[in-house]
């Protein structure tokens, strides 16, 4: 039923599948090299949705910078947008690389791919500080609750009480990246599931329209090390427990918004930075993702009740991002001409005089 309902909506949303998008490119222009991940890995599903979202938004691949840390998840930037620049850095430190890249070139459309270990274990500090700065980028956590690439050790989002193949049991509470992100000032916080392509695409498109950090905590099952039914990061559990906060329609700025009639409180519309609209259609209750406090309470309640809540949990479309705050020149710093960056001889003389 849900899926059914979703389909209807999607037809409203999805620009009729064309051969080429606004950038005059085909979907295959957004593909990358073949994946070397395990077949069935959630990460590959996410790569496909990223490919789709960027294609549908008509993003120009050369403007994109794909950043990542280390892990199976962090390998994925090689598997989409093959003609874009990509940077697979060191473990847990992608946030600083991405921050630097955007300082150097503010025009880049930056997407960071990370894992739960890369972000919540070794990378927790940099992750938090990135969010505080509201760096304008999409930050996707491909959350499977384990270290995939090193063969199944627990990450900081592993379920408490969960068991490794080796028999070791995890007795530490998992970090909730969404709550943490909101507390740290993140201005676009969403949770989704690799097995829910439609929602994921919509959330990615919303993220592309956002002017600050858009953090997507995406449950992405590791079929090799953490897909047993008991795991809250398994396909089965996620499918069975997924609770949609709302149904999401995304209307890109370049599409006409047909005004559809809705009963009172059935739909909320969030206008994004670039003029796109995110439409949230009520499911159980009317939910306001612009209210930080209710977002936090909602997260706490569902966590306590063991629900797996997905959707756009919090958004502040007008928050100033870090580059705005730095008041940087419109021209990317990387390409400023010598005249702009090397003051003239008279300036040096002035400086010298002051020191005499």
């Amino acid at each position, binding site marked *: 039923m849900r899926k059914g309902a979703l389909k209807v909506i999607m037809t409203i949303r999805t620009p009729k599948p064309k051969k080429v998008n606004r950038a005059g490119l085909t979907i295959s222009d957004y593909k990358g090299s073949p994946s070397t991940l395990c077949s069935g890995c959630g990460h590959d599903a996410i790569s496909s949705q990223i490919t789709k979202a960027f294609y549908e938004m008509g993003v120009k691949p050369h403007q994109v910078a794909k950043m990542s840390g280390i892990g199976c998840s962090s390998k994925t930037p090689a598997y989409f947008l093959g003609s874009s620049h990509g*940077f697979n850095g060191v473990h847990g430190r992608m946030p600083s690389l991405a*921050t*630097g890249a*955007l300082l*150097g070139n503010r025009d880049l459309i930056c997407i960071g791919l990370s894992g739960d270990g890369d972000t919540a274990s070794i990378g927790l500090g940099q992750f938090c500080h990135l969010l505080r700065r509201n760096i304008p980028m999409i930050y996707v956590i491909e959350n499977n609750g384990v270290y995939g690439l090193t063969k199944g050790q627990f990450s900081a989002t592993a379920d408490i009480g969960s068991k490794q193949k080796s028999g070791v049991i995890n007795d530490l509470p998992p970090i909730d990246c969404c709550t943490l992100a909101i507390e740290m000032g993140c201005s676009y916080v969403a949770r989704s599931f690799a097995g829910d392509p439609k929602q994921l695409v919509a959330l990615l498109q919303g993220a592309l329209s956002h002017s600050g950090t858009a953090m997507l905590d995406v449950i992405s099952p590791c079929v090799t090390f953490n897909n047993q039914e008991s795991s809250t990061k398994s396909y089965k559990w996620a499918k069975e427990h997924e609770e949609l906060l709302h149904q999401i329609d995304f209307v890109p700025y370049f599409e006409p918004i047909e005004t559809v009639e809705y009963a009172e409180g059935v739909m909320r519309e969030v206008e994004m930075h670039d003029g796109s609209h995110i439409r949230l259609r009520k499911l159980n209750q009317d939910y306001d993702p612009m209210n930080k406090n209710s977002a936090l309470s909602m997260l706490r309640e569902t966590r306590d009740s063991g629900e797996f809540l997905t959707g756009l949990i919090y958004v502040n479309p007008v928050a100033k991002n870090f580059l705005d705050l730095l008041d940087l*020149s419109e021209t990317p710093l990387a*390409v400023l001409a010598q005249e702009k960056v090397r003051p003239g001889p008279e300036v040096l003389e002035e400086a010298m005089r002051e020191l005499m």
Partner: protein
Amino acid sequence: MSIQSRPQEDLQQNRAEGEIVNDFSIQVATVNGSGSQSSNNILMRAIFQMGVPISGKNLFPSNIAGLPTWFTIRASKDGYAGRKKEIDALIAMNPQTAREDVETLQESRVVIYDEKLNLSQIRDDLIYYPVPFSDLAGQIIKDVRLRRLIANIIYVGSAAELFGIEMAEVESVIAKWFKTKQKAIDLNIQAAHLGAQYVRENHTKSDCFRIERMEKTQGKIIIDGNSACALGSVFAGATVLTWYPITPSSSVAETMADYMGRYRMDPETGKATFAIVQAEDELAAIGMAIGAGWAGARSMTTTSGPGISLMSEFVGLAYFTEIPVVIFDIQRVGPSTGLPTRTSQGDVAALFYLSHGDTKHVVLFPASMKECFDLSIQAFDLSERLQQPVFVASDLDLGMNTWMSDPFDYPERPLDRGKVLTAEDLERLGGFARYKDVDGDAIPYRTLPGTDHPAAGYFTRGSGHNEEARYSERPEDYLTLMDRLAKKYETAKKFVPEPIVQFSNGAEVGIITYGTTDAAMEECQEQLRQEQGVDINYLRIRALPFTHHLHEFVSRCQRVYVVEQNRDGQMGDLIRLEVGNEEGKIRKVLHYSGLPIDARSITDQVMEYEKGSAQGNHDDSHT
């Protein structure tokens, strides 16, 4: 505590008919946070304005207020800027250390001190000038806190009177120092006069030290190395500075922020042509700098020892992925936290080998204010030309102390942005291979993210890759890559600044230094010539990798002394690896107490060796 054990220099020796003119040191012993910094500067600059070369060294504790601090002004007619081991005149303002400060002086030196401390009983072989500083201060100001500040300027007046520093200069410096604050100016001038007057009326000069006007400072500037590096970076067109505070490097970033704000706002748009970000730690600081370098910005970070250690992993990434970034290491005394407010050259090995696996880095060693400026600029050119991290290794002595210098010259060469392919280039070439050695110099071509061409994109990774930047575990790809990186290091030799070499006819002894150690060498050479009749050949290293000049120099000397400020003789080892060490020809002269090295220590150690009697702490386990 006192900062030195009692050195052995006989005053008579260097005394020209009873008087010592423009060649002595004044040390002010006080506590930090007591506001003596400005008065010490005023005293130093007054001497400077009399045409006498000066240098100032501030020895301060690693806390914020209330602990002993020593500021030493050296006036040197010969322009020696290195530390002078012996203190000639002590201004004792700190009860905690007064006794020990006095005890460590040599005979017939001068002590100006706060009467209350009555130090004159301690020894009878010194010349004492007691002054009731606080009482005098009380005469012109009631506020107790201010009185402390005023007492400071009073000793400036007293010293000026004693040593013949013209009050007019003191006044003009005070005026300059307090800029528009007229009240402060008047008050300070009044206090200075009071100090001078008291000495005039109550003491008769019985010491031999005098300042006399000369012509050696016209057109010179006074600056610290961190400011010079900051200025250099501003004129190097640096666009991204990401840093984390740490002594003694912080003032590079902070001064740069000032200069950038003044000189680097785009006049047309009023927007910043730079970004300065205080990161959450050094891992983030270097990560951001590398990210920016990857994006094509001229990026840099500033730090000191502990930060260098934390940057190890990321620096290996930049070396292996060939990303330009400039890293300023203002060295302090390590290992670990060590002595954060003392100087050393202890990071040479760490910088050269930084990160796991086979890595070798390019390191520049400025030795003067001019070089702090020039080599900072060159560092950015080198880094983008070679596509790899470049370190600028300064230290606390160079970076935070005040030095006299000629004004800096405006850079002649335009920025060298290295091998970057534009969309047009790509169109012409029909593509490129990121890690291919096209030109035979082992330096590949790169494109910047955002370049509007379908062939522009490539994937950067710290894991194994082939010439097309694709992931590869193939042994042959890895060998090709690592051999090219090794070859690129050879190429670097063509670009790095050459050493400064100086031969004297028939000299058998060669001395090699780098960085601040050079400041003591002119004086050391003089001592060796005058006292020992030894002429030397001299080479000053300005960069790693070494160039052929080093080999030539060593082969032309019988014995080579590598003088540096660390325990293990780190540069000495790198030199031995480069040129060998036939019958212990390469010897190590080391200084690592945390105090700036002084000519006397070098001269003595060299002569010890020369007399075939190298022993003790500084003995060299390798020979």
